[in-house]
């Protein structure tokens, strides 16, 4: 949806500042929901601030400058602002949608910062954000001796983990676990392409759409009725960004591996009594909620009550995946010590949405904040569903000598071999 389409809703921002705070606060220290304004401090970094800047840009009140671009991209587009804004204002403003539209305009105006432009250039030239010319997404599963069913129920997409050798053992264990529990699936493997999620998030929607259509084609080719993935960013793209772009997947549902495992209860590791905390990633959580596109009008019911013309529900992140990862951790015997900011109002680690690439200082601040919060629970280990978030959090923990281990959920629950 373009900046012009967001004109009315951006103008409705009341600048109440609630988009920066949790609606229900448990503790002084961990009251922020927005890592961007926690970092940038001035209001332009908040969700509401970005809506105001979008409006100002649209109406010719401001032009581009370094400060504006930092406010726009020192942000993981985690959606915390939107669920909190909705708590108070229903769908009146929808700051995350304003962020998407503003970023799209930035790209259209040729203002995408160089570090992010490099990513989209890489995607165009090599099909992966790293720009690796060895972009074989099938290498990780080439050595697997398995035969896919002729008519699989699911197709497994693994995202950029396919290009990260360190994640290959984890993927291979995952396949073994799925096979052992009787899952009917095929692996996209070499046919897999980048899903376009990051391209969408930084605002290059033309590129995102092109990539999404390739994903649609490969899924259709697989004949599967569901998509299975362990990649949180991919999960959010398929469930949230594709509908926003009007791209329809030829499947009934998109399933995260944690959902599948929690339901089928394969043998998992034992961590009896271990104190852990679970970090809800925004991509599996609130951004993983299936987005229901709608268009049309807001009517004024009873003269002045703003309602959607259609009965498409306002989203608050409730449709994200929260319970299944916790069920899997609990099944290991570990004791989950919850952080103050969880589920729909979880605090993002700062990596996604181009934030980590554009402004590492921002991403480090967000991770440090999250790790400090994890430590406040008394947990010895932070577990999270995203390998990328885990990697980012682990790096910051080690760099800053924070006494907490960080584990990817799939690794954490994997039975010890032998």
């Amino acid at each position: 949806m373009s900046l012009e389409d967001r004109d009315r809703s951006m103008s409705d921002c009341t600048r109440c500042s609630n988009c920066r705070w949790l609606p229900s606060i448990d503790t002084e220290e961990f009251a922020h929901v927005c890592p961007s304004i926690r970092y940038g401090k001035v209001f332009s970094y908040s969700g509401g601030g970005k809506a105001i800047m979008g409006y100002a840009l649209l109406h010719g009140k401001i032009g581009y400058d370094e400060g504006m671009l930092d406010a726009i991209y020192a942000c993981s587009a985690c959606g915390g602002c939107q669920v909190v804004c909705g708590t108070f204002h229903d769908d009146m403003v929808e700051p995350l949608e304003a962020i998407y539209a503003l970023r799209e305009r930035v790209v259209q105006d040729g203002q995408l910062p160089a570090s992010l432009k490099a990513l989209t250039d890489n995607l165009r030239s090599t099909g992966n954000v790293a720009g690796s010319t060895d972009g074989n997404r099938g290498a990780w599963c080439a050595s697997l001796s398995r035969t896919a069913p002729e008519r699989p129920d699911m197709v497994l997409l693994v995202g950029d983990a396919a290009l990260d050798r360190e994640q290959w053992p984890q993927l291979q264990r995952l396949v073994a676990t799925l096979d052992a529990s009787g899952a009917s699936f095929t692996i996209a493997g070499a046919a897999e392409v980048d899903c376009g999620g990051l391209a969408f998030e930084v605002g290059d929607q033309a590129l995102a759409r092109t990539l999404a259509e390739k994903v649609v084609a490969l899924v259709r080719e697989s004949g599967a009725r569901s998509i299975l993935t362990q990649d949180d960013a991919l999960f959010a793209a398929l469930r949230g960004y594709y509908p926003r772009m009007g791209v329809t997947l030829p499947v009934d549902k998109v399933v995260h591996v944690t959902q599948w495992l929690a339901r089928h209860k394969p043998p998992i590791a034992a961590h009896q009594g271990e104190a852990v905390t679970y970090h809800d990633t925004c991509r599996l959580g609130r951004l993983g909620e299936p987005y229901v596109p709608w268009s049309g009008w807001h009517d004024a019911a009873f003269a002045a009550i703003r309602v959607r013309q259609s009965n498409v529900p306002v989203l608050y992140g409730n449709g994200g995946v929260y319970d299944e990862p916790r069920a899997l951790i609990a099944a290991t015997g570990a004791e989950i010590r919850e952080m103050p900011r969880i589920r729909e109002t979880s605090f993002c680690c700062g990596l996604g949405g181009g934030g980590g690439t554009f402004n590492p200082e921002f991403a480090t601040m967000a991770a440090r904040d999250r790790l400090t919060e994890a430590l406040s629970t008394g947990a010895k280990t932070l577990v999270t569903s995203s390998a990328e978030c885990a990697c980012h959090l682990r790096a910051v923990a080690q760099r800053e000598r924070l006494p907490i281990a960080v584990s990817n959920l799939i690794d954490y629950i994997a039975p010890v071999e032998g």
Partner: protein
Amino acid sequence: MSIETAALKALQAAVGVENVRTDPATLSCYAWNSGMMPGPKFTFFPAAIVLPKSTEEVAAIVRACNANGLKFRPLSTGNGTFYLSHQPNVVVLDLVRMDRILKIDRANQMAVIQPYATAGRLMAEAMKVGLTCHVIGAGPGHSPLASATSMLGIGITGSSTGHNARNILALEWVTVDGEIVRIGTTGEDWFSEEGPGIGFRGMIRGYFGAHGALGIFTCIGYKLYPWAGARKLERTGVFPQDGMPLSENMRFFAPVWPSSEQVRDAVMRLNHSGQMFAVLRMPPANIGFVLTRSNNEYRDRRLNGTLPEIARDESRHGLQVLTIGHSPAQVAHQEKLVRLIVEETGGRMLALEREHAEMLVRGLVTSQYVGRARTNNGATSYGIADSWHLWPKAVESAEQLVKEDLASGDVFTEDAESHWAWPTENRQLWTEHVVAVRKSPRGGAIALVAFLRHVYLMQKQRLGIASFIAGPMIDMFGRTMHAGLWMRRIKRTLDPQAHADASMYISPKESAAMRVFPYVKGLLFSRAFKPVLLGMMSLMGRKAGAMKKADKADLGSAPPRVPESQTGGPAVRSPSA
């Protein structure tokens, strides 16, 4: 508004280069008219945004502004447009870096806080030691320091947590000359002969607050109140409709009466008992906005008659009452007392589902859901502050005021009126008539005219103190008892050079228009003149360019009000997001 190099360097010297922002994108976020005021979305961009970390830096900024011919304006958490400058050459001090709760002193029931410590954060920490704080209607994201020192300070827990003006125990004040003054006591860091009781803090604050026009407050000692509830507010319900469990010593009541007179009688007796944690009259529709997940659900359930009874129009003469006892005997006494008062005043108790009660109780304790009253299109809010004996008159005058607008189909309230109301300090009445209007120049004009006419009629009919009198309103309506004249004298005395931005306070000089106003207001606010006033306000809205092409569908004459049973449908359309 570009800033002179010398001034910029002076500000940078005060707080460091990285804490001074002059880029237009950042400035735009501090020039935003959120729509509560008439006029365009942007008028005057500030000259700079400056982020001090300490009181000394605040003082240095003030001195730098004075030396360079700049006005200044402080901003803490910022809610709505009360931070908005209506003049050029203003430096905004965003106090975001002064966000600490410096101390919670359990024994002495007080906290020491900086401007950006929010009520939500303070409350969470205070509750851990059995205390709580006053929360104003803006909700947990507001700044208690700003509320206590600089604006109004009324909150729905006022029965037990008072009025914020009286919660100040100590005050650190950077005067308009950049001098740092400390009054009252923080218990250990400073003591002053200007104690926590009477003192000149009343002069530098006033009733409505000076909004930074008399200097900047950088730290306060703040009164906390006993809290006998849980040390942590656990969450019940489904986000974002968070509730909280009622502990054994809490009792929540939802009584209703047939008339506003009975509500008045009941509240005066409840006040007299001194036993209430919170008493609130919330309009049923606003309760409905809280208890439904979206406006669409509210619309549907209103139409099909499935809203809970407390959220229906017929429950409009109702209250929410929360008591919290410190002992089983007190809990029993409170319960007996409330039931007796309700019975003797002719009321009855509504039955509530537990889930709904838990949400409403969270709202009473934290003010979390007050904001949902603004989930609509445009809205205005006006009301009165005086004694509860005026409640029936407040209801009646509000009914009269919106009667014509209801008929025109531009306004939504309950069937007749839509006051929020609660007692403060077991005595005072506070009301806010929250009126939703269509998002259009006409709707905006209706809101503004309703607001102005309300204040005028209040004074004419002796309906107590108008609740929102700030900025030019002080000159327009503050003359009755010469209070406005004395506020101007205070401003002139404390700030003879008019260094501090007074957009939301009284200006040092009275304008010619304001001198004429007393003689024309009778005509201006007469019923006959109302269409002209509406036209003027509509023109103002249109000229401002605040409305867009998409709104033009709303510009014609409003459709006739359709019986509710036939609506919920698209009487008026605005483009979706």
